[in-house]
């Protein structure tokens, strides 16, 4: 147990660039709590997901109760509380995308990757979730893969794109 704790402590610390960015983010607001969402985005970029240890670390950095950090992490959908796949497929299934075939896209992903919504492939390469309106209804259906939007999606296009991912 003791060994594990040491390892965790060692792991959860922003890189030098991350530390710098943290300071720059804090300077944007009159109080530290206001920087929380931006710092969580930074943390997710640095650590890949927001573990309890990451939340504790951020609570210390922002001088906040752990509960305040947990509250935000649990409220917003974009913070991962367990590791997502290397490629996180987010399929918009709200009305405009649904009218243009989002259902078929979802079905295809489930069949192709052998996972259900909310799951990660055993090799950790892909994860798949359905998301609410991504604000790109004119180019529906839309799939967001990590940070990038892929618009006017078709089963064929998606198939081709997935093949290019290493």
């Amino acid at each position, binding site marked *: 147990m003791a060994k594990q704790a040491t390892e965790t402590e060692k792991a959860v610390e922003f890189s030098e660039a991350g530390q710098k960015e943290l300071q720059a983010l804090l300077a944007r607001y009159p109080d530290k709590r206001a920087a929380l969402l931006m710092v969580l985005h930074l943390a997710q970029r640095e650590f890949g997901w927001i573990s309890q240890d990451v939340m504790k670390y951020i609570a210390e950095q922002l001088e906040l109760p752990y509960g305040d950090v947990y509250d935000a992490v649990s409220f*917003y959908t974009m913070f991962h509380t367990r590791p997502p796949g290397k490629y996180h497929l987010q399929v918009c299934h709200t009305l405009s995308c649904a009218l243009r075939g989002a259902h078929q896209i979802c079905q295809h992903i489930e069949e192709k990757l052998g996972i259900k919504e909310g799951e990660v492939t055993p090799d950790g390469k892909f994860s798949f979730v359905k998301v609410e*309106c991504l604000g790109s*209804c*004119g180019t*529906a259906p839309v799939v967001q893969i990590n940070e990038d939007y892929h618009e006017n999606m078709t089963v064929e296009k998606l198939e081709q794109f997935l093949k290019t991912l290493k």
Partner: protein
Amino acid sequence: MFEPVLTKDIQIPESQEIDYYLSRGGYEAFQKVIKSMTPDEVIEEVKASNLRGRGGAGFPTGMKWNFVPKNTDKPHYMVNNADESEPGTFKDRLLLNGNPHLVLEGTMIGAFAIRANVAYIYIRGEFAREARIMEKAIAQAYEKGFLGKNILGTGYDLDVYVHRGAGAYICGEETGLLESLEGKRGWPRIKPPFPALEGLFRCPTIVNNVETLSCVPLIINRGADWFKSIGPERSPGPKLFCLSGQVKNPGVFELPMGTNLKEIIYEHGGGLLNGKGLKAVIPGGSSVPILRPEEIDVSMDFDSLAQIGSMLGSAGIIVMDEGTCLVDALLNIAHFYRHESCGQCTPCREGTYWAEQVLRKIEHGQASEKDIDMLEEMARHINFRTICPLGDAAAMPIMSFLKKFRDEFVQHVRAGACPLNSQL
């Protein structure tokens, strides 16, 4: 002939660059304002233009700015609401991508008008690319000396920052947004006090939509009379209409406010996909009352749509063809509002959950006609009974779909299945 002004240059790759923007007269309005106008003169000009908020409510922008107290020792804040998330709406994303300096200049003029020295641009978390574009635009504006201390020797100080959301529709509601900007969950606040008096960090704050603020530099450059001459005088200006659903050419169209809805769908949008017939249109984002085909010969402006019992909202036009199951479409919308309810008020938290359950039963033919009545009653019990308008946004589609397309719901119940075998 109307010429697009907000989106004129967005197809040009350099349109994100400040040098390009400057070569097109960019930041002239901001310079004019800080060098030769008082904040009150700016407010008067915007008031005279009859600019109304493009986020959905259509509130007069100049009047809103005027609510900020003139004599406080508290700092003031300007917030640009780029949390675009109403289903069917995708206009602000276009501006952030293709005309970031116009968005920024509008924010800066707004900040000056309400005597703010700090402005935030709150961008929904999913718009990661747009956040990077705005960060770059801001950095360029600092380099040119348009931001920072004592801007161009005028004595005016202004800092602008990007703040990213993290996936929550409710943060588009202005007080939910402010909570989120303070690092909390986006739970809307009870009003009053209104943000103009007590907003961000309990200080006077104005929250305006991206498109609204993007109109401001144009009003300063070309004058309130020019703006008022476009479209209906009481709700004028250039307007971004978002067209999606089963149309041939979906997309954003910049047209005069008050353009006819039928013209937008059939001329600009090229009509329906595969030559199908029209079943229904949602004119202003998924929360506004739906229209039947015989109702679409209407002017797209705040007052005309209100007159026929709907709303311009965010001008998110969603077109549905004759093959669409409206029960399934409503189920999709109900699912959205259930998912996005912040959970603070009981009528919304519980009501959106049960509405989705009942709709699922109806769609799958497992409901009785009594359930349809119950659904309607539930919507009435959500409407106007919550702190923020998300409750109304969830209730309005239910009430209007049932009012205008009740037959389809009854058919599902009687057939014991979805007659269209819909899969949305």
